[in-house]
C-alpha cells in the first residue's frame, strides 16, 4: 500500500539530502528521527540513484544555483526520483514537488523546479552504474568479470537480517512467533539467523522490546559464528572496536562462559552498546572507552582471542548506506587502511602466543582487507594467516570475502591470524 506523499515529506527529504550531499553528514545520523517511510524511501532512493538522477537534472538546469540553495537542487532530485523510480503519476509528482518549494521557504524556485521536471524523461537511465568514477574504477580493477554484477548488486535495497537471542528463546520458538505474527521470512545459514522477506521497523518485531531478537546482517552473523566455533568456555576475549556490539552480543549468546572485554574509543557509542546489552539481557562483560591504537587501557594479561572489527570505508554496505557512494573520498579509504594496519600492529601485542586474532571489515576493497593483512604478515614473524571458510563468499589469499552479489549478505572480509607459540 502506498500512502499519500505530502509536500512536506518531499521538502523534508530535500533537506535531509542537502545535509548529506552538501555537508557530508552521514545518512544514518540525518534520518535517525525520521519516521515517515515514504520520506525515507525518497532519501535513500535519491542517494542510491544519485549519479543518474543528478545527471538528468544537471542537463536541464539553466543556470548555477547559490550554495545556500542546495536544498532546491535536492528537491529536484526528489522530483526526478518520483518520476523515474516511484511510479508517482507525472502530473502529481511535478505539481506536488513544485508546491514543496514553499515548505522550503523558497517560493521563487517554483518556476525553476517546474521547468526542469517537465523536461525530465520518466524512464530511468539504462544500466547506470550509480558509483563515483574512482570507486567504480577500483571495483572493476579488483573484480574484473564479476564487477558488473557487483555494481548492480550495490544498487539494490538492503535485506533485513535478524539474530535470535538464544539466551532468551529457542530459535524454533522464535520462528513460531514470527509465523504467528504473519511475518514472512527465510532461514539463513545459522540456526539463529533469519532473513525477512520484507524489511519492517524493528520495534514491530515480536519480542523486540524484550530482547528476544536483534537486527544484524546475516553475513555479519557468519563472522560471529565462525569465531564462536573456535572458542571454548573460560577464554579471555577482546572485542577491540566493539560498538555497536552486534558481534559481541552474538558471542555472549553462544552459551559459552567467556571473559569478554569490549573496547571502543567513542564513549557515546559504548553508551548505546550498553543500552542494547540491557535490552538483550547481557551482562558480565567489561567495557572500556579507550583508543585501540594505544595500550594504556590494558592490564598486561594477554587474550586468547582478539577480534578487530576495524573501522573501514563501508564499501561492502552500499545497499544499506548509499551515502557512501556520494560522500566517501579515496583519501578516507587510504586513511582507513593506515588505521587498520596500526590497529593490527598494536593489538597483536595483546594476543597470547598460540592464540588468535580475527580481523574483519565491511569492505570489499583489497587495500583494506588482504593488503592490510599481507603487510602485517610480512612485518610480523610470529604471525600466520590460517584459511577461513564460510558458507558463502570466496577465499582470498589470506582470508575470506563475502559479497553483496549473494543478496542475503553485505560485503564482509574476515581473516584469521594465529600467533605462533
Amino acid at each position: 500500500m502506498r500512502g499519500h506523499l505530502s509536500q512536506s515529506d518531499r521538502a523534508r527529504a530535500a533537506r535531509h539530502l542537502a545535509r548529506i550531499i552538501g555537508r557530508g553528514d552521514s545518512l544514518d545520523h540525518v534520518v535517525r528521527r525520521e519516521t515517515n517511510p515514504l520520506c525515507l524511501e525518497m532519501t535513500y532512493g535519491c542517494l542510491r540513484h544519485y549519479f543518474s538522477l543528478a545527471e538528468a537534472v544537471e542537463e536541464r538546469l539553466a543556470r548555477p544555483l547559490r550554495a545556500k540553495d542546495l536544498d532546491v537542487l535536492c528537491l529536484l532530485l526528489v522530483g526526478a526520483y518520483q518520476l523515474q523510480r516511484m511510479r508517482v503519476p507525472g502530473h502529481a509528482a511535478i505539481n506536488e514537488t513544485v508546491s514543496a518549494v514553499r515548505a522550503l521557504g523558497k517560493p521563487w524556485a517554483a518556476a525553476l523546479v517546474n521547468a526542469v521536471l517537465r523536461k525530465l524523461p520518466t524512464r530511468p537511465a539504462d544500466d547506470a552504474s550509480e558509483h563515483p568514477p574512482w570507486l567504480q574504477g577500483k571495483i572493476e580493477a579488483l573484480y574484473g568479470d564479476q564487477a558488473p554484477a557487483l555494481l548492480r548488486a550495490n544498487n539494490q535495497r538492503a535485506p533485513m537480517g535478524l539474530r535470535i537471542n538464544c539466551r532468551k528463546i529457542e530459535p524454533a520458538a522464535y520462528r513460531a512467533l514470527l509465523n504467528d505474527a504473519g511475518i514472512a521470512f527465510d532461514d539463513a545459514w545459522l540456526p539463529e539467523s533469519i532473513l525477512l522477506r520484507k524489511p519492517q521497523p524493528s520495534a514491530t518485531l515480536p519480542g523486540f522490546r524484550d530482547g528476544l531478537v536483534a537486527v544484524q546482517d546475516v553475513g555479519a552473523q557468519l563472522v560471529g559464528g565462525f569465531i564462536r566455533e573456535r572458542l571454548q568456555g573460560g577464554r579471555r576475549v577482546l572485542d577491540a572496536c566493539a560498538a555497536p556490539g552486534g558481534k559481541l552480543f552474538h558471542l555472549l549468546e553462544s552459551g559459552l562462559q567467556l571473559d569478554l572485554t569490549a573496547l571502543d574509543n567513542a564513549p557515546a557509542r559504548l553508551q548505546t552498546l550498553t543500552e542494547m546489552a540491557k535490552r538483550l539481557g547481557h551482562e558480565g562483560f567489561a567495557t572500556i572507552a579507550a583508543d585501540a591504537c594505544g595500550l594504556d587501557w590494558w592490564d598486561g594479561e594477554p587474550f586468547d582471542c582478539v577480534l578487530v572489527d576495524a573501522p573501514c570505508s563501508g564499501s561492502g554496505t552500499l545497499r544499506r548506506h548509499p551515502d557512501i557512494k556520494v560522500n566517501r573520498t579515496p583519501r578516507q579509504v587510504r586513511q582507513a587502511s593506515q588505521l587498520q594496519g596500526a590497529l593490527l600492529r598494536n593489538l597483536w601485542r595483546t594476543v597470547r602466543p598460540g592464540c588468535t586474532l580475527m580481523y574483519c571489515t565491511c569492505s570489499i576493497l583489497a587495500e583494506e582487507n588482504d593488503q592490510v593483512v599481507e603487510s602485517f604478515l610480512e612485518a610480523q614473524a610470529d604471525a600466520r594467516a590460517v584459511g577461513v571458510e564460510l558458507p558463502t563468499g570466496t577465499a582470498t589469499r589470506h582470508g575470506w570475502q563475502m559479497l553483496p552479489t549473494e543478496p542475503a549478505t553485505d560485503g564482509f572480509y574476515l581473516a584469521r591470524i594465529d600467533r605462533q607459540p
Partner: protein
Amino acid sequence: MRPVSLLNILTFPDPRLRTKAKPVAAVDSAIRTLVDDMLETMYDAPGIGLAANQVNVAKQVIVIDISEARDEPHVFINPRIEVSGPPVETDEGCLSVPGFYEPVTRREHVQVEALDQQGKPFSLEAEGLLSVCIQHECDHLEGKLFVDYLSNLKRARIRQKLSKSQRVRA
C-alpha cells in the same frame, strides 16, 4: 591500478559543480588544511588548477600551479578578477571533465585581488596560461564549466561519452 587523487573530484555532469561558492569568512586552520589537501589532490591528479567546488566544498578557494617542476603553487582565496586585452583561444581541459580538450576563447590579461593562505591580501597580474587558468578556475566558483562555452552539440557529446563510462560494463 591507476593511483587516485585524495579528495573526490566531482565529474561533469554532477550538479554539485553547478553550485556557486561562498566567500571565505576567515582564513583559519580549516581553510589552510583545505588548501593543502587541494594542492595534493591537484598534483596527484595531475592537474594545473583546482577550485574548491570541484571537491564539493562550496567556498571561494582556488589552487594553481602551471610550472613545469610543479613547485610554484598559487593560492587564491576570495578572488576578484578583472579581465582585459584581446581575446585568445586556448585548448582547455578540466579535472572534472576528464579526457576532453576543447578550444575556449578568453581575454589575454587578468588582474586578480585575493587573499593568500595566511589571509593576507595580494594582487597579481597575469597573462598567458596562468591568466587562462585563473579565469577557468574562477568560473568554477560561479558554478560554470568550460564546456558551457562549447556548442550544445559538442557539450551533449561530452556528456554522453562521460555518462557511458559510468555505466555498468557488461
